[in-house]
């Protein structure tokens, strides 16, 4: 249904559960993928699993110069960047009254500022091409808040406001900018929870279970497709009904 043959997609955080699944899904739809992340081994393993049409582009998103260089490297490796998925993110959870400046700054830098830099870096080529797709992976907590995550929630809400503003500016050039806001998704991070903890989470979710990375990737595939050309500035909430926004 969604064909991305001939499209080149840059995905950050591709070494993680959700990012890896997004990369696999876009690749399966025909896209060439640029896999970015800090850890090289999982990226290379993923590239090997995908076979062709996959490029490993390591990048430390807390290094501003490296972030600025990434879109250029991706365009050199793939020929262009038609789809950008800003999926990488970090957490530094802390009760707000004890949150240190560096815990705040690290999260804002990696989650929000690097997203801004990467958007800027790819839009030039997209403007010339008169088409492009930017998909920013936000979070349910950007809309609902979450205790211990003032920094993370601020970065994820910031992403939504920024995406809407960019969407306004570039809509006339055929470029769409949207967010996906995942709820609780089963990844390596949630595997560490005990069954008791998982049960407590699941009762808050009308669907009665955590989501899967594939369910986030499906949303990314839709937003990346030609079919979503008229969808811009929106946030697609994928959360099993946990917050109906």
């Amino acid at each position, binding site marked *: 249904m969604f064909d991305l043959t001939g499209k080149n997609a840059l995905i950050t955080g591709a070494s993680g559960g959700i990012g890896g699944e997004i990369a696999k899904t876009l690749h399966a739809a025909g896209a060439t993928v640029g896999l970015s992340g800090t850890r090289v081994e999982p990226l290379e393993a993923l590239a090997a699993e995908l076979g062709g049409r996959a490029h490993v582009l390591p990048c430390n998103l807390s290094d501003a110069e490296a972030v600025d260089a990434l879109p250029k490297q991706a365009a050199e490796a793939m020929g262009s960047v038609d789809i950008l998925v800003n999926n990488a993110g970090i957490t530094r959870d802390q009760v707000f009254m004890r949150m240190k400046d560096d815990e705040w700054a690290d999260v804002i830098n990696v989650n929000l500022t690097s997203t801004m830099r990467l958007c800027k870096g790819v839009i*030039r080529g997209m*403007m*010339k091409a008169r088409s492009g797709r930017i998909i920013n992976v936000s979070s349910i907590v950007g809309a609902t808040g979450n205790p211990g995550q003032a920094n993370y929630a601020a970065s994820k809400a910031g992403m939504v406001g920024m995406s809407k503003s960019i969407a306004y*500016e*570039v809509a*006339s*050039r055929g470029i769409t900018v949207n967010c996906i806001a995942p709820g609780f998704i089963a990844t390596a991070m949630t595997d560490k929870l005990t069954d008791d903890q998982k049960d407590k989470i699941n009762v808050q979710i009308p669907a009665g279970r955590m989501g899967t990375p594939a369910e986030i990737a499906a949303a990314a595939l839709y937003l990346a497709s030609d079919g979503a050309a008229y969808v811009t500035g929106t946030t697609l909430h994928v959360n099993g009904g946990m917050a109906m926004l």
Partner: protein
Amino acid sequence: MSDVADRVRKIVVEHLGVEEDKVVEGASFIDDLGADSLDTVELVMAFEEEFGIEIPDDAAETIQSFGDAVKFIKEAS
């Protein structure tokens, strides 16, 4: 008319879809030639490519008119 001015005028005419005789020295891209702010970004990108130069953001902001562009490019290249 210099070669630089001719090349700049060609880009402006093509990009903004305006008549060639409207593109005079003092013509403001936004006020006189109907550009929006994103058009001015694209014009600067096109100038960079045509002349093989890099126009930093703070300099780009000073290029408001056809005359500004020709002057900047002559000095830069």
